C-alpha cells in the first residue's frame, strides 16, 4: 500500500490550553498538518482515561495522539503527566491486544508552537501510515460480510 493512497484515521486529544491553540495557530499560519486528523479539545489531557483512548481504537482509529502542555507547564500541575502514564498503559495494552504500541503517542507543546505541532502531527501521521490500518475499521464496516 502506498502512503498516499491510504488515509489513516487519527484522533488527536488536545489540551485547549496548549495543543489545541497550537493547532489553531498552525492553521492560521497556513502550516499543513494532516487534514484527516480529528481533533478533540479537552480542558486538559488529564481528562483522558483508559476507556477514551481504547474506545477510539475500537471505533476505528488507526492512531491516537495525545497532545498536552510541556511538562511542568500544565494548568493543573500534573494533568499531562497523568496522561503520559495512561498513554504508556494503553501502549502496553495495545501490544497485548495485537496492535503496535506505537499507535498511541503523547506529545508536549505550548500554545505558541504552531509549527512544532504541525511537524509532530505530520510525523505521527507518517508513522501511522507506515503501520497501515489496524484492521478494526474495515472489519467494523464490513462485519456482516466477515461473519458470513
Amino acid at each position, binding site marked *: 500500500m502506498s502512503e498516499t493512497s491510504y488515509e489513516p484515521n487519527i484522533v488527536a486529544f488536545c489540551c485547549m490550553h496548549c495543543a489545541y491553540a497550537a493547532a489553531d495557530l498552525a492553521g492560521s499560519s497556513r502550516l499543513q498538518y494532516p487534514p484527516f486528523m480529528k481533533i478533540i479539545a479537552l480542558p486538559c489531557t488529564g481528562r483522558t*482515561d*483508559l476507556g477514551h483512548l*481504547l474506545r477510539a481504537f475500537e471505533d476505528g482509529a488507526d492512531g491516537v495522539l495525545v497532545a498536552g502542555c510541556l511538562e511542568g507547564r500544565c494548568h493543573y500541575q500534573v494533568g499531562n503527566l497523568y496522561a503520559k502514564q495512561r498513554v504508556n498503559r494503553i501502549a502496553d*495494552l495495545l501490544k497485548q*491486544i*495485537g*496492535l503496535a504500541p506505537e499507535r498511541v503517542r503523547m506529545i508536549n507543546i505550548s500554545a505558541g508552537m504552531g509549527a512544532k505541532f504541525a511537524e509532530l502531527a505530520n510525523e505521527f501521521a507518517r508513522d501511522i501510515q507506515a503501520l497501515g490500518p*489496524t*484492521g*478494526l475499521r474495515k472489519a467494523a464496516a464490513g462485519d456482516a460480510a466477515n461473519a458470513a
Partner: protein
Amino acid sequence: MIVAEQKSLDEIRSLLRGKRKVLAVGCGTCVAVCFAGGKREVGVLASALRMAGQLDGSPVEVDELTVQRQCEAEYIEALKDKLADYDAVLSLGCGVGVQTIAEHYDGATVLPALNTKFMGGPTEQGVWLERCQGCGACLLDYTGGICPISRCPKQLQNGPCGGTDAGGRCEVDATMPCAWHLIWEKMDKLHRQDELLEVRPPKDWSTSRDGGVRRIVRDDLRKPKLESGA
C-alpha cells in the same frame, strides 16, 4: 477492602477460548475502588477483548454489566434473565463475587478475570498494601496497631528476625519496611516497649484458615422461624 488485580489479557483470552458471546460483570464495591473490576475497568477490558478477537479472527461479543456488589445474592439478581444469552460470564469481582454468581446460576460458566490478592488499603495513590490476613484472633493491641501476621513474611509474633538492614527494611523485599521495626518504634513512642519483652505464647491458629472453613452465625440477625404448632 479486598484488593485485586486483573489477569493478563492473554490469560483472560485463554479462559474464554471458544466462547463467542460473553457477559463481563463488574462489581461496584472493593474492586471498583482499587481499579480492578469496576464499571470503567469492565469497559476497558471488554473493548480490549473485542479488538483482540477481531484482530486474530476469533471475534467475541462482550457485553458489559456492573452490579453494586457481586458477593450478595440480591445484587446479582440483575443477571437472572440475561445469562441464557451468553456462553460465559466473565466476572471482574473478587473470588467471592465469582463464587456467588457461580453458586446462584447453576448452569452458567463463570470465569474469573481478576486475581484476588489481599485485604488491605491504599498507602498512596496507585499503591495498595496488605494489612490483614483474617487470622480470626486480632493481636493489634499487643503490637501497637501494626499487624505482623500480614506484614511480616515470617509472621513473627516476637520479632523482628535478624535480616533487617539499614533503615529497617525487610530482607524479603527491600522496598518494604520491617513490620517489627515499625512495631518497636511505635511502642517506644507509646512508652510501651517493655511489653514487647514478654514472650508471646504460640498463636492459636484454629481461628485462621487452619481451623477449617470459617463461618459466622449471628442468631440475632437470622430470619426468625415460627415454631410449628405455635
